């Protein structure tokens, strides 16, 4: 006997993500899901961003790792609402993780929520967490072929970051090839080159965040890709 289902495989996750999205938008919170490989500098980027946003926008952070509280401890120096999720063997955050974390955050004191996903360029991309935007992060140290090798992340991101540009004088990295690979996959996605260490590009990144319409004033529906 055949049973026709015709449903998104990740439907159960997406149902919780929709609840998260409603919760966050009702609170007027703009939410970023930051996705990148282990070691690309996600935590360092958020640390530097938190420092630059101090006094401008109120922030909270949810950080996902398989183990340890180390990333949360680092970011707690700059933000008083940081929640660490340890996934154990899980290689990505799911909407349920975020739902649990949100119960520990006072959203009335938040303008921007950063979700630092588990270090992984693959699995996190497909899981909706209830965010407003996915931000894909690559690093100079990761090589210039990583955008071409991870088309899903490139296509799904609202903005792409190339971090650790302070290493460009020391590491062979074909910027032209990297950008050409991105344009073939996603012609219009902004690409910001930055370095939390040298400060290069950080003003543009912070301005991009500040320019995003507040969730509570959004009139355009969230562009669901599925």
């Amino acid at each position, binding site marked *: 006997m*055949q049973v026709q289902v015709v449903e998104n*495989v990740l439907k159960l996750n997406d149902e919780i993500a929709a609840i998260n999205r409603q919760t966050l938008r009702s609170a007027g919170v703009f939410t970023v899901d930051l996705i990148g490989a282990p070691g690309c500098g996600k935590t360092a980027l958020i640390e530097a961003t938190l420092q630059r946003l101090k006094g401008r926008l109120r922030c909270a952070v949810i950080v996902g790792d398989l183990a340890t509280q180390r990333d949360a401890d680092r970011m707690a120096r700059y933000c008083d609402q940081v929640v660490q999720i340890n996934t154990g063997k899980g290689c990505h955050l799911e909407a349920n993780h975020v739902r649990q974390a949100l119960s520990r955050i006072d959203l009335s004191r938040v303008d921007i929520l950063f979700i630092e996903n588990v270090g992984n360029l693959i699995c996190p991309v497909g899981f909706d967490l209830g965010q407003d935007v996915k931000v894909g992060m690559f690093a100079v140290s990761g090589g210039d072929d990583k955008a071409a090798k991870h088309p899903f992340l490139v296509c799904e991101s609202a903005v792409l970051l190339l971090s650790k540009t302070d290493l460009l004088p020391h590491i062979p990295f074909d910027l032209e090839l990297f950008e050409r690979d991105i344009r073939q996959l996603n012609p219009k996605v902004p690409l910001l080159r930055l370095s939390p260490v040298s400060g290069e590009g950080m003003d543009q990144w912070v301005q991009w965040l500040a320019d995003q319409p507040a969730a509570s004033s959004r009139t355009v529906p969230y562009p669901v890709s599925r």
Partner: protein
Amino acid sequence: MHEFCIAQSLIELAKRHVPPGTMLRRLVIEAGPLQGIDPDAMSWAWQAATDSTDLAGSKIELVQLPWRLRCGACGREWTAPELSATCSCGADEAHPVGGADLLLRTLIVDDPSEEQSDAGSGCRECAEAQR
């Protein structure tokens, strides 16, 4: 592993749709090229994920959808098995459209009540072929 993550999500969804009293034999999923699913890895992941569950022994069939491409120069759209930037107009400005589909299309289940009513009504080879 990516395919294992998908298998775990699929188990929960499949359990919602398998009719009570039936046994899942096979399920058919469709995946767009952005999902990057390897068919062999998906079969292995499904087997590993369903082991020791009610769905153990069931098989997974993966239908891989082609790339849908649009030329940034002339606007033409077409489907292709591989990602390529070149359009028939000569421009190298083709880029993918969509491609992230991940759908549970069909479940094939054994209904013991149907098998009982069919008992003795046909030959065993025909019944096996119908599976």
